[in-house]
């Protein structure tokens, strides 16, 4: 992409760019795509990519090798997709450098190496235009490779926000346009009035996808009516919930969708400048957004007088500096202004008084990425997906104790059971489901009895959790709910800004009490005390962080009280996690004396001669679990 960017000023220019993009999306040569989002890179995708490039170059193959974003099969990373001309796109999972080289050599000889293939696609839907990019005939098959649409993991997914992730090269503007990118913006600027745009958004029923679920159309309308100028648009990409990476996938895999959504919103609300606030822990996302902004500006799709409409809009990226509380709207604003991230009371809301005291519309990445789809398909179409007051789709990160931890996008109203068992594949290693945590540190833990709950904003809130930004962590019997409560309280007490007394002191005390319970030092009155403090923190805290901070511990008390009581009354940890309440022991009938445990034990707590039964000296054992990891006959027991 070293050629200077062509300017795009009208529909004809867009169509030309689309034609260029089409050529690289569906080349006449074999194309190899490697999933190079952060997940892929963490699994070693970079080396795989280099190996493929080296091998194709060495064999002088005219193959196109390109990076792409999150293909959507996170547990099988690194992922490599191969598309031979007019043939289906085949996905290969758990690739490494040797396999990658062999695959390239195999393709040369017509060997598809299907033993490593995990799925095939004959095309990718384009929800913006209701068309489909066809890789092959719809009936095309490859022996032994299942079709995506036949797999439970993908069957129910409807990819609106993630429509281009894993499909395009995120650094290629033409490919984005070939997938109907910037068509919605063109339509908005040349054929719609601001009120009409906001009307579509309102009709769609879209609610803020960052967690609070505030009706987006309503926020936009409030913002539009503000007389003060200038007005600002902000994209909240400070995805701080541990266990959630939906926004990262979009920022890394389809950055232009966010820019387009923001520009449409800016036009609708009368804003002139935009800020994308990305957490600094996502360096690749920052890089992709900066690239995309530069490309869009060079193409005339961002900046002054877009599509000759007279409307101008500029976006800049602001990096976070590492503070969970800056995901809260008002703290985000103070952080952008160069100060500490201390929230303030609302009202007034940022849409009334925000950055620099001016009207500011803050929406989450996912919310913005939905806008082009809503505009092109219409709000009514979007609203026919979903349920009740929760319309459309939602991106979730299903992680933890599931067979298929991965990113998914499903219509609202699907049940938790369907997500965990059908899509997630259930609990691995024959273990039993224990709880699912939704909504991050502001959310709660739900037990098995609530698995048939439909996922929507109201149901989850009533049950004591919240929808949140989309993180869903599944837990099996190896998780201690009291330890989990302690974990969340530790996180929140650290990340609290510390300004208001309730949150700062209340969470600190709650953490101390729960920690004592995990150490076997709890007493009967502690549970009531936690509930009282939790109530007080929720009711009197100044901002959303404090107001939702007690949710994890209160929900675990509500649904897993017996576990707390076991810790308090019997000084016992049913999940065998809390260190002060467990002991490690080697079962003599299982131990084969191999000595693997002795080699990894750093506190010299294991004694035994070769081929003889080993024992653990509990006085020295620090319960690090290293021996558990290496014991083949599973003779190490935790009691």
């Amino acid at each position, binding site marked *: 992409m070293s050629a200077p960017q062509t300017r795009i000023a009208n529909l004809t220019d867009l169509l030309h760019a689309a034609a260029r993009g089409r050529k690289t999306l569906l080349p006449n040569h074999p194309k190899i795509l490697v999933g190079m989002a952060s997940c892929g890179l963490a699994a070693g995708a970079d080396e795989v990519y280099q190996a493929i490039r080296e091998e194709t170059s060495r064999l002088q193959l005219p193959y196109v090798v390109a990076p792409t974003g999150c293909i959507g099969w996170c547990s099988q990373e690194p992922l490599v997709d191969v598309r031979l001309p007019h043939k289906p796109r085949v996905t290969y999972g758990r690739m490494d450098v040797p396999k990658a080289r062999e695959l390239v050599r195999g393709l040369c000889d017509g060997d598809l190496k299907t033993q490593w293939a995990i799925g095939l696609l004959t095309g990718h839907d384009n929800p913006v235009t209701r068309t489909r990019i066809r890789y092959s005939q719809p009936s095309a098959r490859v022996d032994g490779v299942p079709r995506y649409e036949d797999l439970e993991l993908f069957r129910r997914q409807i990819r609106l926000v993630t429509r281009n992730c894993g499909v395009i090269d995120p650094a290629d503007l033409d490919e984005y346009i070939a997938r109907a990118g910037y068509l919605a913006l063109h339509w908005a600027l040349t054929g719609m009035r601001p009120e009409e745009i906001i009307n579509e958004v309102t009709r769609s029923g879209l609610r803020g996808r960052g967690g609070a679920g505030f009706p987006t159309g309503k926020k936009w309308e409030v913002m539009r009516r503000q007389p003060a100028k200038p007005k600002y648009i902000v994209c909240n990409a400070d995805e701080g919930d541990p266990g959630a990476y939906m926004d990262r996938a979009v920022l890394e895999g389809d950055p232009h969708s966010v820019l387009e959504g923001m520009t449409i919103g800016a036009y609708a609300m009368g804003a002139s400048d935009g800020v994308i606030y990305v957490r600094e822990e996502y360096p690749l996302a920052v890089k992709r957004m900066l690239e995309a902004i530069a490309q869009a500006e060079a193409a005339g799709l961002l900046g002054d007088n877009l599509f000759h409409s007279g409307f101008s809009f500029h976006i800049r990226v602001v990096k976070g500096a590492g*503070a969970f509380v800056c995901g809260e709207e008002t703290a985000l604003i103070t952080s952008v202004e160069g100060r500490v991230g201390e929230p303030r009371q609302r009202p007034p809301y940022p849409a009334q008084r925000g950055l620099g005291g001016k009207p500011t519309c803050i929406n989450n990445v996912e919310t913005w990425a939905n806008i082009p789809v809503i505009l092109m398909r219409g709000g009514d179409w979007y609203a026919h997906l979903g349920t009740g007051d929760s319309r459309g789709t939602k991106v979730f990160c299903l992680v933890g104790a599931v067979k298929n931890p991965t990113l998914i996008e499903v219509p609202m109203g699907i049940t938790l059971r369907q997500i965990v068992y059908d899509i997630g594949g259930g609990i691995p290693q024959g273990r039993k489901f224990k709880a699912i945590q939704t909504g991050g540190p502001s959310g709660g833990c739900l037990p098995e009895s609530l698995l048939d709950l439909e996922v929507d904003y109201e149901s989850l809130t009533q049950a004591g959790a919240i929808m949140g930004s989309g993180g869903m962590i599944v837990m099996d019997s190896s998780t201690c709910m009291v330890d989990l409560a302690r974990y969340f309280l530790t996180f929140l007490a*650290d990340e*609290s800004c510390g*300004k208001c007394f*309730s949150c700062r*002191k209340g969470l600190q*005390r709650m953490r101390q009490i729960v920690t004592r319970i995990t150490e076997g030092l709890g007493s009967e009155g502690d549970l009531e005390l936690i509930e009282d*403090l939790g*109530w007080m923190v929720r*009711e009197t805290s100044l901002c959303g962080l404090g107001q939702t901070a007690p949710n994890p511990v209160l929900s675990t008390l509500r649904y897993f009280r017996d576990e707390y009581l076991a810790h308090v009354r019997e000084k016992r940890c049913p999940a065998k996690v809390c260190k002060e309440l467990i002991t490690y022991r080697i079962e003599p009938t299982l131990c084969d004396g191999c000595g693997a445990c002795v080699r990894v034990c750093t506190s010299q707590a294991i004694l035994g001669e070769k081929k003889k039964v080993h024992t653990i000296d509990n006085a020295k054992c620090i319960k690090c679990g290293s021996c558990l990891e290496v014991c083949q006959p599973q003779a190490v027991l935790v009691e």
Partner: protein
Amino acid sequence: MPRLTINGIRVEVERGTTVLEAARFLGIPIPTLCHDEGLAPYGACRLCVVEVGTPPRSKLQSACTVPAEDGLVVETHSARVDRARRLLLELYVATCPQSKRLQDLASRYGVRRVRLEPEFESCIQCGKCVRLCAEQMQAGAIDFAFRGWRRKVMSPFHPHSELCRQCGACLYICPVVELRCQGARPETTLCSGCINFSPACLEHHDHAMCFLEPCAACELAGPLRLAGPLRKGLVWEKEEPEEKGEGELL
């Protein structure tokens, strides 16, 4: 001029008045720690929380930061506010038991027990010293540092800040520095010196029936029974005895 309702009383105030100021104008007492007339509202101590809005959509907000607006409905002594104040003060006393100001507040609002270990910290981070130094003294010699439970007031790197002009205003304005009657080494976390009663009326109603401090009236009122829900007004009504008893009257 915004017109709002506080405890059922309609009042019209100047634009820019806070709910705290409006309530005090009406003579309704609301406890505060981080508030000072000479400083911009801060909203950190949470002690001045009041119930804003009509249930079930009401929420607790700090009165010092809520601007008076047309149609606002505020309750300063509802059961919810009372419970919040008592729990807050329980936590305050546990944090800083050696402070007379906090003990007095605890006593006034009916804190009977402190279930938390005393910490003996000397700062509640109300921010008055920092704000006074910045806003009034224009020095900014001290400020907060760190975040969350680690947050504290300090002068960076060196205990003596070269911006400090040693005016002593920070010492003057600190609300927790006054020592308790029992001195620096009190024997009990919670003082028991001053008499306090918790409002008995809250056992039957959603709102306190009066603002007497300390609340003691009902316990001595005898046959004067409470008149039912607040919407009838803050009025004591004499009730006819249900049946002829024997010498039940005062």
